[in-house]
């Protein structure tokens, strides 16, 4: 069942287009920064974006940071929102259920496959950023103010941990998409809803007047992984972020299971 679902997704053009964008954007951004170093944003933006042209590792971190709050979210929303609604839209959901595939098993298999693709997508961003960064800016240590990693190896280890953390940060979007996917037969609705969750959360997170409520927003800790590279006041931010992402994922998954078990399949 898992193999079938994996192959089904791998043979879809939209999967390859999504991966193409994820891999292509860091390459294009790197080339643009190389050609126009004065307009590359060096010295501006979040810490990982400082001196993006200084080394391949800087470029990889910048790619992960920027993609994890927008384009990667769209792709993860796509993988989550298409799970059940995609089958319903094709009309194949009813045939899977009468095969029979138990609803719980079907949902969890779909989630697992979507998670595999979300993980691959996140690592694709990092790999593309790193490969294009090394090719364009060289294999040099991280550079920039306040950076405390000392060697390329240490930075590479931090980059790997950061990527794994971002995979976890995508779980709320993935599972929210899955949840919506059980509630509609229109994949675009579930995908848009999941992406919307991230956007609304990011907007609310920017409103400082909300005070501690912001700490409970699903995207509040998305970029907490930068703490691996910079001195920080709160060393437990990533732990809290991981816990929060898991809680959201479990709640959304629980609702998805509850809903799907009781759903009348009319598609």
């Amino acid at each position, binding site marked *: *069942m898992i*193999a*079938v679902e994996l*192959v*089904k997704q791998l*043979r*879809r*053009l939209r999967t390859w287009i999504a991966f193409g964008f994820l891999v292509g954007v860091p390459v294009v951004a790197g080339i643009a920064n190389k050609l126009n170093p004065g307009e590359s944003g060096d010295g501006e933006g979040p810490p990982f974006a400082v001196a993006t042209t200084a080394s391949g590792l800087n470029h990889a971190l910048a790619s992960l940071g920027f993609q994890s709050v927008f384009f990667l979210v769209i792709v993860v929303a796509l993988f989550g929102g298409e799970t059940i609604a995609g089958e319903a839209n*094709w*009309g*194949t959901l*009813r*045939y*899977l*259920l*009468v*095969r*029979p*595939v*138990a*609803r719980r098993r079907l949902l969890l298999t779909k989630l697992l496959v979507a998670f595999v693709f979300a993980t691959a997508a996140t690592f694709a961003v990092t790999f593309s950023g790193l490969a294009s960064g090394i090719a364009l800016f060289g294999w040099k240590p991280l550079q920039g103010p306040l950076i405390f990693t000392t060697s390329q190896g240490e930075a590479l280890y931090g980059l790997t941990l950061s990527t794994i953390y971002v995979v976890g940060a995508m779980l709320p979007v993935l599972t929210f998409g899955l949840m919506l996917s059980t509630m509609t037969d229109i994949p675009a609705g579930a995908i848009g809803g999941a992406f919307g969750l991230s956007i609304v959360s990011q907007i609310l997170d920017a409103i400082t007047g909300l005070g501690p409520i912001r700490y409970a927003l699903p995207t509040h800790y998305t970029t907490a992984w930068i703490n691996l590279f910079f001195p920080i006041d709160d060393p437990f931010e990533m732990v809290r972020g991981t816990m929060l992402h898991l809680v959201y994922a479990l709640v959304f998954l629980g609702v998805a299971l509850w809903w799907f*078990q*009781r759903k*009348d*399949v*009319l598609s």
Partner: protein
Amino acid sequence: MSSALSVERLTKRFGDVVAVDDLSFSVEPGQVCGLLGPNGAGKTTTVRILLGLVHASGGEAFLLGERARSGAEVLRRTGVLVEQPAFVPHLSGLRNLEFYWRSGNEDWPPPNLDTALSIAGLGGAIQRKVKTYSQGMRQRLGIAQSLLRKPELLILDEPTNGLDPGEMREVRRSLKSLAGEGITVLISSHLLAEVEQVCSHVVVMDKGRLVTRGSVTDIMAATTGVYIEVDDVGRARGVIERLPGVRSIVDDPPGLSLELNGLPRPELVAALVGAGVGVSTVATRNRLEEAFLGLFDSEAGPIE
């Protein structure tokens, strides 16, 4: 021996709408049963409850003696074509069959693959992506999918939808052959001629409720439709309108179609001849379509 398929006091409500209302019927092993009814009668909802796709609001449904529910193991012994066939469009026909089969955690190829592919009759097109298929090709692939394992029970919703006459004949022949092997078949169809040709029994529904059930032969025998050809249609109509026991008279050139309601046919002929009307043809309209329409006309009361 228990029924191959049965529903007992089955009810399904969607909000305020009652789609299936206290429905009970059964299909015995080896029967080929047609599930008939006008649009909105509740046929598809009944089929979906049997397959565990829709949860009943009340009552129970059983397949091969096991309670029908989502994911029920008995579904492995049941071939299904529900509403329209549906496939993953970017995969080939054969790959769709393979993925469908493997999703049930069973090794490919299935035991009845050759027979199923022979019924599908797609030839080399089985390797083409399904999105390039015509409606008829999808339909045939759907029937093949339902037969990947020789089922004990076959539930088919509009199995000849989208097929040309030759393909329809082939599918009917296959269904008859399967029925001859003892497989129980439930066919939901709008094509009454098809049901008449293929089915041994029918269940007729309307507005979610059972209207009647029984063997096709018995139901057709109960029909009261008569077609007559006479030398003077106008005069004949005048004579018949004065007779008691006639429910309806419809012009059906070159003759008249009548729905009798208690008037024996010999008395009808005698009355016409007695009135000087020459009668050249008297034929009983014992077609399932007549019986079906008669059932609904009789519910609405006599037609004047």
